[in-house]
């Protein structure tokens, strides 16, 4: 927080009075971050950007609460937590990430209370999602959103849902579990999220075979490097000649590290933090961790260079990187990174399928 501009901007976000003010602050954040993109070290960039976005989300939630109060619905009846999933949960949002969110609130003691809470938080999350859309954060296409009944519910319901997913690990449920694993409390009662996480880990111990299912669920996204060490670029369409950085580099690594972390009960959600903790736990050797971290930082950086576009006021991004934009050295570095990513993916695959089958 030594940067005066930074704390000032965070303060303005914290004091914004309405959606319009927040939207212009978001635009300001994006412009500022885009300008310093090439100067800042990549980790610092992500830290700063996610700090701003967290602040924007927190302020949006506060404004939504106030809106509801003005509309006569009162204030939150019980403690609740607003959870970010996906890249938000991992603290790895780019300039154009979408919303992936959930909500958990304390249980009511009677059915009437429960119904009243459900009603309030359904309304609140609806407001929040709409507000964030106005800030240019598009809705998650897969509907992982706090205003969806599956992702916004009371703690007891959440626990029941998690147990259900573990008991019946169909493809869809396993996918949900992987999403939950990246959940991070951005606003509200942190301990609610911690208790969700306790349930998650308890269930993991009861169902060790699920690791294999989780692996099956994520192996679809392969690192995009061919047997000749060539980049596997898009062949057709507008993005021909570009590389799918998101699904061909970044996501495979996130998936592999997440899987290792889940098995070690590592609760950090950031991929780099997970790597550090895996190293401390002795799962990764020094040199492994170092090369994975280097590759992942590169992916984080290149992911920021992927084609950006504004669509109907939303910040959007298709995750595709035009390879022509890269210098020869960068391409060599990227290939090396992809090879490291592929090695990690194979290692995780072997471990999970060998030991836990």
């Amino acid at each position, binding site marked *: 927080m030594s940067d005066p501009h930074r704390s000032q901007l965070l303060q303005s976000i914290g004091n914004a009075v309405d959606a319009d003010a927040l939207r212009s602050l978001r635009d300001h954040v994006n412009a500022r971050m885009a300008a310093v993109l090439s100067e800042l070290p990549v980790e610092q960039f992500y830290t700063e950007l996610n700090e701003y976005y967290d602040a924007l989300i927190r302020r949006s939630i506060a404004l939504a609460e106030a809106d509801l109060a003005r509309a006569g619905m009162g204030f939150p009846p019980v403690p609740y937590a607003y959870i970010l999933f996906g890249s938000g949960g991992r603290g790895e949002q780019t300039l154009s990430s979408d919303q992936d969110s959930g909500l958990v609130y304390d249980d009511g003691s009677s059915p009437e209370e429960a119904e009243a809470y459900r009603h309030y938080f359904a309304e609140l999350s609806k407001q929040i999602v709409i507000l964030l859309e106005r800030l240019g954060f598009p809705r998650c296409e897969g509907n992982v959103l706090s205003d969806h009944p599956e992702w916004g519910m009371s703690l007891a319901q959440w626990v029941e849902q998690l147990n259900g997913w573990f008991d019946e690990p169909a493809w869809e449920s396993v996918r949900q579990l992987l999403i939950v694993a990246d959940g991070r409390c951005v606003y509200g009662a942190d301990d609610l999220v911690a208790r969700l996480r306790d349930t998650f880990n308890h269930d993991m111990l009861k169902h060790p075979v699920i690791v294999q299912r989780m692996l099956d669920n994520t192996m679809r996204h392969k690192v995009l490097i061919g047997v000749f060490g060539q980049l*596997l670029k898009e062949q057709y*369409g*507008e993005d*021909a000649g570009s590389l799918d950085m998101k699904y061909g580099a970044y996501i495979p690594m996130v998936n592999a590290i997440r899987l290792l972390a889940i098995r070690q009960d590592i609760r950090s959600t950031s991929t780099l933090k997970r790597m550090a903790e895996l190293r401390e736990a002795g799962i990764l050797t020094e040199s492994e961790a170092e090369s994975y971290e280097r590759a992942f930082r590169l992916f984080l950086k290149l992911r920021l260079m992927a084609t950006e576009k504004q669509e109907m006021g939303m910040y959007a991004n298709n995750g595709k990187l035009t390879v022509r934009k890269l210098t020869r050295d960068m391409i060599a570095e990227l290939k090396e990174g992809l090879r490291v990513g592929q090695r990690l993916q194979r290692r995780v695959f072997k471990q999970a399928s060998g030991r836990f089958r």
Partner: protein
Amino acid sequence: MVKKLLLSVSALLMLFPAMAFAADEGPSTSMLNMGLNSLWIVVAFVLVLLMQGGFILLETGSTRMKNAGHVAGKTIFTVGLCTLIYWAFGYGIFNGGADISDGLRKFIGWGDFFFSPTNSAGEGDAFPITTFFLFQLAFATISLSIAWGGFAERAKLSVYLVFTVLFSIIIYPVIAHWIWGGGWLAQDGAQDYAGSTVVHLTGALAAMAGTILLKPRIGKFNKDGSSNEILGHNQVFSALSVLLLWVGWFGFNAGSALSVGDGFFGFVAFNTMLGAGAGTVAALLISWAVSGKADISTTLNGALAGLVAITASCAFVDPWAAVVIGLVAGVLVFFSAKLFEKLRIDDPIYALSVHGAAGVWGTLANGIFATDELATKVNVGRGGLIDTGSWHQLWVQFESVVVCGAYVLVVSFIVLGIMKVVMGLRVTEEQEIIGLDLSEHGTYGYPEQMKKAQNNIQA
């Protein structure tokens, strides 16, 4: 029971001496030989004709629903038209028996127009000329159907009509005469057993002239030079087409022996099978290795490329070489398709790569892999580079590819160029978008589906 048995045995005994007696006046060995040959040639003709079914499925499967009826129907129509034109003129240019100067005969045949053959084989003939005509005709229709690959999804129906006539007179028969009809390349000893050059390269280069003059389909290429994948509407059709063609190819290659004789056609079929298998495997593996996904279209193309390549060489090479030729063809077809896309030449059903690139390779492969023993047996040319150490045959093969290629390309460009000026080649943009089924024939090949799609657009 016993009675019945006795009765039939005695009846057979009565018959047997009669049969033994009949054998004395029966067919001579040469007549039996002729009969067997003609039976095989007619079977081969039927197999090659059936390959049109393969082309129908290949072309429809690889193109979009809105053109399906047109694509399928026009193949049948052009086979019909080609039959008449080839009978009236084409066969005469290929193999006419009129007395013309040797100089002229080097380049074209003459006579036997509106071919009127004798109705049975003459004394000492290996087969009746009728069977030979049918077999040759089937080849002409195959070459023509290959050419249509370059016209797919945007040429006017009238273009199919006019070009069928011209192709069946001045393009295909001329090349066939040069290599198979005793023309100048035949005299040089050019080896093209069943037509890698004569049939496949000829068709492919006509397709190339067509697709270049027609310009790419709407939506194939973007302004920035990248290309879009226009997926065919039915991959199962495409796969079935390959199987159908593969089966038909045994008529195509093994039938080209034109005789049963000592069973050499079995060896030809054997090599053909090896080449096709190798092409398929190589294509799948190379697409997998290079693009990270095992591509089905490429695999199918690989099977066909293996077949196209082995067509010239199936009678001239040892089995191991057939495998090598097929493998190379499978890899070649993958990169060739990429190259044409880079050059921004729209090749809707990969005719240029499958029949062109692989046709060239197959023809040249003779110059490398042909063995002297087999060349002597077939009595065309000599052994290739590996067997004899001599570059002679490779040079002859190279010459035949270049000369035939140049002739077909130039004449096709001239013919289609004139047609473009006089009558226009391409349907209007609107017709292309609604589909040729509707614009050229007034009804869709898939009426229910297409009506639904149309309603959705209007809604």
